[in-house]
């Protein structure tokens, strides 16, 4: 079950011919898949394409109606391999993941797929996780297209164009027997817009037909001598077929006047930014009219040489706008111009920055420089360009830099991973710092304050594998952290299997929060929920024991900081050889609250006896050292100034968002901090016995309190 319900979005998938779809880009793409007669969809969740997976997971009914098979793949490699259904059979398949991280994982299957080629349309939807909002290394998916000679679409970031690209992508794939990648950037995935829907289409040829009538062709298998023939086929037949299709179907677009001294070549995905910059320079308007010729490459790879040549001829200079390093397209255009001996000057990353996101100011600056070089007159009579620099250079604004705090993402309120890292901090205090290999997932927030734990991150499920070199005699052991998501994605074999086989002497900490939490709380193999469509409740402990691990400890409540600390200490000091594996399990609080809150409210309404817990701080007792915060960082545990003139520093304070996870109390107890924390248990719908007991206690306690208060000579408050 994903973090939230997508029931409303599922309704959007049912829209028919002529109806208006209003919503997010990635959901428009999802709808486009169904309109294109797709037979099967797979993928691995991750920002920015998670919603494609989430909404299809909730759309079982529609998928069954249409005869579409949907699968939550174990990894991007599994998803890519799934596309092999389209190798021999005329079925359309689509898979999706976060790129380039996911494309790296998938590339083994992708290479084989593109070498042998496909019969049915094979579409790979890449959420290009680049620029602001990204959480991964800044690379370009373009490289994968080039090395495997798969085609790469990069449509203009509006819903009609993205929807059209899905249909075009399938057809291009079928016309050239080659898998096609469709790249959408973060903002395009999350852009809200509208398009006119079409009816969903049932696949003409079904997977069932394929399964019951198997076909094989040894020439499609990547083994000599077929692999050499495939290489030839790619270059001599499939490539020209793709070029012809792209040209004939006019997948790339031309805007602005036919003639001009200068021209702009841009990738489709960057078109809106280019247009806004031109608008600010007075060279275009908001409705797409431009006074500069623009060639929009909605197909980023392959380049259509004839179109480029036609565009460049007669112009003094053109500029190629592509984001990220290196400038693959610009380089290929230089080759093209040199070969054809075209004298048009070509610019790109000599003017624009070599890396980073092409934000509005970056494009504005680059285009201004370019136009000033060749056609300064164009810029005459331009409106004033937006310029915040006078504001930014004012000392009042500069002073902000020291005051506005960094606010990176962090563990949520009540997160069960927090106590794990609090325990690691406590162990650190006793046994010193250790080398910690981190992984991918929410637990990676441990590298930030207040925990500052974790040295490297090498990839999903690779935490323990990335500590494998440290399997040497030493007075300290390495600690590797891996989430349950990473564990099932890759970690079981690549990290745990590797550690068992090589008798790796380090500690492996598997953070099990019952979901693939960082990507939106999707179910995975070890999820504790009963999912009617999936087999869940498969134990991580059984899995690691099954693979040969012997020192395995399960902690069922990560909030038990003392137990967590002691288990870690044992793992770091035991004489036993081989990996020491600790599986620390507690449910992701974000998902738990979504699940439990309505249940709790209903139970209270039904008159059941329920106990609501939350934490508080006695501010008179708190001295404002904030040691508790340095072992927590919980959003609900904050600070506040008191009105006590004798107190200088703000005291700890817990706000109403507290979910009563218990971390504060457990930490202050385990770390011997202070007795300020209390847990307040409020009994809703108390029983008669509860009431009797409470009354009895209150009468004795109240009498004692009154007695002492009466004897106290103090100033009135």
């Amino acid at each position, binding site marked *: 079950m994903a973090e939230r319900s997508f029931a409303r979005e599922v309704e959007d998938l049912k829209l028919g011919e002529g109806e208006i779809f209003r919503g997010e880009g990635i959901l428009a793409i999802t709808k486009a898949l169904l309109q294109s007669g797709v037979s099967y969809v797979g993928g691995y969740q991750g920002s920015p394409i998670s919603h494609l997976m989430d909404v299809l997971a909730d759309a079982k009914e529609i998928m069954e109606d249409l005869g579409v098979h949907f699968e939550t793949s174990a990894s991007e490699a599994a998803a890519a391999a799934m596309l092999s259904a389209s190798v021999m059979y005329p079925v359309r398949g689509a898979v999706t993941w976060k790129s380039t991280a996911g494309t790296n994982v998938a590339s083994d299957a992708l290479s084989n797929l593109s070498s042998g080629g496909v019969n049915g349309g094979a579409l790979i939807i890449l959420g290009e996780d680049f620029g602001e909002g990204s959480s991964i290394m800044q690379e370009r998916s373009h490289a994968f297209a080039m090395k495997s000679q798969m085609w790469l679409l990069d449509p203009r970031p509006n819903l009609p164009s993205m929807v059209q690209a899905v249909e075009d992508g399938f057809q291009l794939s079928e016309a050239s027997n080659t898998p096609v990648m469709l790249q959408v950037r973060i*903002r395009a995935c999350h852009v809200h817009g509208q398009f006119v829907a079409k009816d969903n289409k049932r696949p003409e040829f079904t997977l069932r037909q394929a399964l019951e009538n198997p076909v094989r062709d040894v020439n499609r298998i990547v083994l000599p001598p077929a692999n050499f023939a495939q290489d030839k086929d790619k270059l001599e037949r499939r490539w020209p077929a793709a070029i012809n299709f792209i040209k004939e179907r006019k997948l790339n677009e031309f805007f602005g006047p036919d003639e001009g001294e200068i021209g702009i070549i841009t990738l489709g995905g960057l078109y809106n930014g280019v247009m806004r910059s031109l608008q600010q320079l007075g060279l275009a308007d908001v409705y797409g*009219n431009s006074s500069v010729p623009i060639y929009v490459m909605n197909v980023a790879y392959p380049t259509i040489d004839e179109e480029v040549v036609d565009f460049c001829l007669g112009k003094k200079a053109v500029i190629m706008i592509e984001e990220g390093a290196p400038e693959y397209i610009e380089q290929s255009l230089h080759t093209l111009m040199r070969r054809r001996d075209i004298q048009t000057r070509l610019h790109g990353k000599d003017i624009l920055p070599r890396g980073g996101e092409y934000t509005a100011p970056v494009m504005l600056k680059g285009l201004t420089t370019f136009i000033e070089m060749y056609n300064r007159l164009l810029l005459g009579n331009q409106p004033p360009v937006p310029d915040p620099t006078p504001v930014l250079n004012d000392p009042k604004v500069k002073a902000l830099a020291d005051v506005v705090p*960094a606010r990176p993402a962090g563990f949520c309120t009540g997160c069960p991973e927090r106590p794990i890292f609090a325990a690691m901090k406590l162990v650190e205090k006793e046994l010193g710092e250790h080398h910690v290999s981190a992984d991918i997932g929410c637990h990676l927030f441990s590298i930030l304050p207040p925990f500052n734990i974790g040295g490297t991150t090498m990839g999903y499920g690779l935490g323990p594998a990335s500590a494998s070199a440290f399997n040497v005699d030493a007075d300290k052991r390495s600690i590797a952290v891996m989430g349950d998501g990473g564990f099932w994605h890759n970690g079981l074999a690549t990290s745990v299997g590797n550690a068992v086989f090589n008798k790796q002497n380090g500690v492996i900490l598997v953070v099990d929060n019952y979901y693939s939490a960082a990507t939106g709380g999707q179910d995975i193999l070890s999820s504790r929920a009963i999912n009617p469509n999936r087999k869940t409740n498969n134990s991580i402990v059984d899995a690691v024991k099954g693979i040969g691990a012997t020192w395995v400890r399960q902690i069922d409540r990560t909030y038990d900081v003392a137990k967590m600390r002691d288990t870690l200490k044992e793992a770091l000091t035991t004489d036993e050889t081989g990996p020491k594996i600790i599986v620390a399990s507690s449910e992701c609080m974000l998902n738990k609250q979504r699940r439990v809150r309505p249940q709790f409210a209903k139970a209270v309404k039904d008159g059941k006896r329920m106990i609501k817990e939350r934490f508080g701080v*006695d501010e008179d007792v708190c001295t404002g*050292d904030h040691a508790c915060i340095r072992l927590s960082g919980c959003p609900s545990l904050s600070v506040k100034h008191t009105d006590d003139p004798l107190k200088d520093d703000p005291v700890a304070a817990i706000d109403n968002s507290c979910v009563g996870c218990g971390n504060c109390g457990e930490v202050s107890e385990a770390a011997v901090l202070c007795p300020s924390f209390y847990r307040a248990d409020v009994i809703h719908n*108390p029983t008669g016995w509860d009431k009797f007991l409470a009354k009895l206690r209150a009468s004795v306690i109240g009498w004692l309190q009154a007695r002492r*208060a009466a004897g106290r000579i103090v100033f009135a408050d």
Partner: protein
Amino acid sequence: MNETVNPKTLLVSDKPLTLAIMAMGGQGGGVLSDWIVGLAEAQGWMAQSTSVPGVAQRTGATIYYIEMLPARGGVSPIFSLMPTPGDVDVVLASELMEAGRSVLRGLVTPDRTTLIASTHRSFAVGEKEKPGDGIGDPTVVVGATDFAAKRTIAFDMETLATKNGSVISASMFGALAGAGVLPFAKEAFEATIRGGGKGVEPSLRAFNASFERAQSKPRDEVSATPVKRYDALPESAAHPDLDRLVHRLRAEFPEVAWPLLFAGIKKLTDFQDAAYAGEYLDRVGKLYALDRTHGGEAKDFAFTVQSAKYVAVAMAYDDVIRVADLKTRGSRFNRVAKEVGVKDGQILYMTEYMHPRMEEICGMMPNGLGRWIESRPSLFAWLDRRINKGRRVQTGTLFWFLTLYSIAGLRRIRRGTLRHAQEIEHREAWLSAAVAQLARNYDLAVEVINNRRLVKGYSDTHARGLSKFDRVMSALPLLQDRADGAAWMKRLRQAALLDESGIALDGALKTVATL
């Protein structure tokens, strides 16, 4: 250029209205963004929103961006997917520092930007984790936003939303409507909220309250210094012992020291009794006498004033008796019930998380016995193994209440305990170090008094505080003959409050050593 082919003349000058929302993950920035887009579309405009949520969904700072234009004959406008600095009409910031961040990003400019910001604070980890006061100065933000924005609407939209049973997205939507920056009627805003279907009534209440507020009182004052409560001296305090204290305070001390002295006697009568508060006045009185003879009057008796504060703090030390006392009071039971919102028919129980060590137990013992045990390490360790563990104390049950109540009752013998003796020892050493500076370097003497701020907390925290105090004080011989000694001492203390392990302090001490 040849005018006949100039295509620029064909361009339309329409510009979209642009809005940026600066939010933190989990605050409902997406809801607000959807409302604005829905509103515009319902009014026949074309609108586009984008966001970069990513992992920022998990409490991090993030931005939503919206552009809109009236629909124009079937042509779709080309909207930008990101804001251009200097080209934003409305910035909505859901927290004070996020308003500051929007200015730093260049999104707020005086020629066009209306800034709508909530002035509440949600402190970042970097602010909270400091051992001292790491809270960013809000007046710097206000100074910058006032300079950068064309117009500012800034008040606590979080509290206003909570008061109306809703969340901040509703009150921000109300402030946006109240600001009148979008050409849509208030009813259209309300219809958008109704169309959402969830929590409509509370949302509308918060929306309306915020709409009114944005028009009637669009600005909240923010202050850099926390508001402290200084009570007026009472004419009569309903008990002769207390009246005597107040009388002494008036008779024996300069007026400038009264507020803190009164806070001190209030704290110490509460901590122990009126006699103890009397001792406090005696102790500060002696310091005041010295202050006078060392030219304190010219310094507004800063030495006396600061002594009034920190001697009270030192005398009201945090011991087990104090904690037990505070935890068992009736007023505390009532306060907790109010804080967690216990309603009629519900029952409240508190569980305290305590972890006493042998040190604390020894501290509660009579001085002689305590020292006797402390001087026998193996006995101490043996006892510690039995004492030193976490205990969940259920204060609302009879057994635990009586336990804490009895411990609180040890107040009567507190003056004879080991801890009390230790506290006096530390206090007197500190005060004599300060007094020793009075003749030589008045300002430095005041700073030595202020150093007491470093000693706080319990257990390890207390030990760490003491060690920082000692390290800061170790610079005294180097500073006592310097005219800028006081400034350096203050710097050392500030450094000590920057991080837990004292890295900044070590650096500052090294600098002092090279002076």
